[in-house]
């Protein structure tokens, strides 16, 4: 089995666009939950804080926000690692995407059109942008990622399982490099579903590779526990993701809302950042949601 390294990270959330902003917000214990003009309620929507043109020159006539966030965080991870996709490596560069709601916001728009007008006038571009795999497909086209590709969607463990699948694809040489992304965006449906817990726009990308570079962080272990307790032999720092709410310090109440499918990747990005910044040498990112559980251990490479 090949070693697997994290060589690039990208993150967007209501705490900030990019790891520097997120790091600062976390240090200052900022909330990221605020009154949304669009939805008229408290949530972590970043639609007014985020401009996709900062991340791509492509003009999209329509793009679901989860897809937009996916493109942005992949671009950040590419820039962070200086990884360039070219004709030589594009078929061996993979993408694994995890999301609970994926394009629910676009599903709402498409459904509204069906309600407002005859189904024979259904809007093809809204429909094609409403598929759960649409963010990953759009990103694949945007960056020319033609390698291993799969999408975990709809379960609360989708983000964690996407990360696990990406790790497996690297260990079994299905890819030479792979973007693993967890992302979700606030929509009216999502707000209705969570009711008492404010949802956040959240997207994070981790570029993993078998090649070690100067800033690499190693994924030294990954386990899926299926409801079994975590082993208590780990002595390093831990970040917990419980029901897709991130507890940066397990001893403190720090959740700001649910990051949905972006939670595990966001936590792993924060862990990798802390190792790269020299704050800690290792960190275990733990995931629990219902009967699903697992963890990965990140170490200084």
């Amino acid at each position: 089995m090949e070693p697997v390294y994290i060589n690039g990270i990208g993150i967007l959330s209501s705490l900030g666009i990019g790891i520097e902003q997120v790091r600062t917000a976390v240090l200052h214990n900022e909330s990221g939950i605020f009154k949304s003009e669009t939805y008229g309620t408290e949530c972590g929507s970043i639609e007014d804080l985020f401009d996709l043109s900062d991340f791509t020159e492509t003009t999209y006539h329509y793009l679901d926000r989860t897809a937009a966030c996916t493109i942005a965080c992949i671009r950040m991870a590419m820039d962070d690692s200086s990884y360039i996709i070219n004709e030589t490596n594009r078929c061996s560069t993979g993408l694994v995407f995890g999301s609970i709601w994926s394009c629910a916001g676009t599903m709402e728009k498409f459904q509204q059109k069906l309600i407002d007008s005859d189904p024979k006038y259904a809007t093809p571009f809204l429909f094609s942008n409403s598929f759960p795999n649409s963010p990953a497909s759009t990103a694949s086209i945007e960056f020319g990622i033609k390698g291993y590709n799969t999408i975990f969607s709809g379960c609360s463990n989708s983000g964690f399982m996407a990360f696990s699948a990406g790790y497996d694809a690297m260990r079994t040489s299905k890819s030479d490099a792979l973007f693993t992304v967890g992302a979700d965006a606030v929509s009216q449906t999502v707000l209705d579903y969570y009711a008492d817990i404010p949802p956040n726009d959240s997207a994070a990308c981790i570029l993993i590779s078998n090649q070690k570079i100067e800033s690499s962080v190693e994924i030294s272990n990954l386990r899926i526990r299926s409801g079994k307790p975590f082993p208590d032999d780990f002595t390093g720092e831990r970040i917990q993701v419980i029901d897709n709410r991130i507890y940066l310090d397990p001893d403190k109440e720090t959740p700001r809302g649910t990051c949905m499918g972006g939670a595990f990747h966001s936590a792993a990005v924060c862990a990798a950042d802390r190792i790269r910044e020299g704050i800690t040498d290792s960190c275990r990112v733990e995931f629990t949601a219902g009967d699903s559980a697992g963890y990965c251990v990140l170490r200084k490479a």
Partner: protein
Amino acid sequence: MNDNRNRPVITGMGAVTPVGLTVSETWESLCSGTSGIRKITLFDTSGLRNSRGGEIRGFTEDAERPRSLQFLEKATGEALSNGNILENSEILEETGFALGTNFGCAESFSRYYTHRDKNPSVSTDALHQYPFGYYADTMRDEFGIKGECVAVSTACASGLAAVEAALQILKYTDAESVICAATDELTLYSYAGLCALHAVTKETIRPFAESRAGTQFSEGAAVVLIEYEDHARSRGISPLARIEGIFLNNDAFHTTAPDTEAAGITNCMEQVFKRSNVPKENVTYVNSHGTGTKYNDVIETRALKNVFGPHAHNLYIDSIKSMTGHEMGAAGLIELISTVMTLQTGTIPPTVNCSDPDPECDLNYCTDGSITADIECALTNSYGIGGANGSVLLSAFRE
């Protein structure tokens, strides 16, 4: 985790399709060239491109619960029964669940959203049926599964993506077996959208025919029980087929159109062979994606020639969608089950409605009725909107 527990095999199968409510019913219909395409009664198709599709009939259903979930429950019961683990709580506690679906319970989403449009304080009960995790929760409750449960969605390649997810559960968790499932239901939401994309023919699905003009959509579910060979043997089960290889990739070409050079699907199949010990010449049967759209069939033909070279002309190739219609996210796994049946029985179902073969589709598409042949290895392919591709290589299990 244990990477040395032998090779993955299929030990149980269940299906609910437009041509049969079990695997054996479905298989009998396929081999006799029976079509499951009929008038759609589930919703009003007025003004849409086609009023016919693969609507499942003869199914006793509970109107309060999503059809796709009920298909799944029935197919799971069949697969667990013939895999000899139904009501075996000891094994089910060590069993995972991997689901592939394209639209899931989209009807529940539509119902919720439509009611909410009229009354914003409507109950969210229907909404809670929409996320694909609802299937997993139901399966846990109903069948006593305690292993890891996941859902994948790669459009019409979802069924094969579920196989890959199932293999990962076997590899990375303590699960001794995995229920690999796929399901989708016909709804106005998906049907109106697919018509808007002009994927639907105005007349009849005709894979590989010159007159083909699109596909016809349908619904259904498929379930296969996957475990390692030594585990199956330890409980006295003779496997139905071996999974020799699988790969998933993306065309990265266009949101709704396939790559006309067939590069993505060619590479997907090549990667399967690269990772298996099976020589290409050992493959003599391909269960094609075969949607009957203008683009798909000729591109798929091109890809098979790219991968197999002159041997492509020796292949038996069929499209069972010509009879079942396109079951969307369930299609890949239904076709995998059909492929396993071919490996077991040596019968290749026909491609029907192809009375005018397209000169550009010049391989052997089995258009003259079912064929008998000894098939050792077979490939099944699925492709989806957004450029998602999946290929699975299977071999016959022979003692």
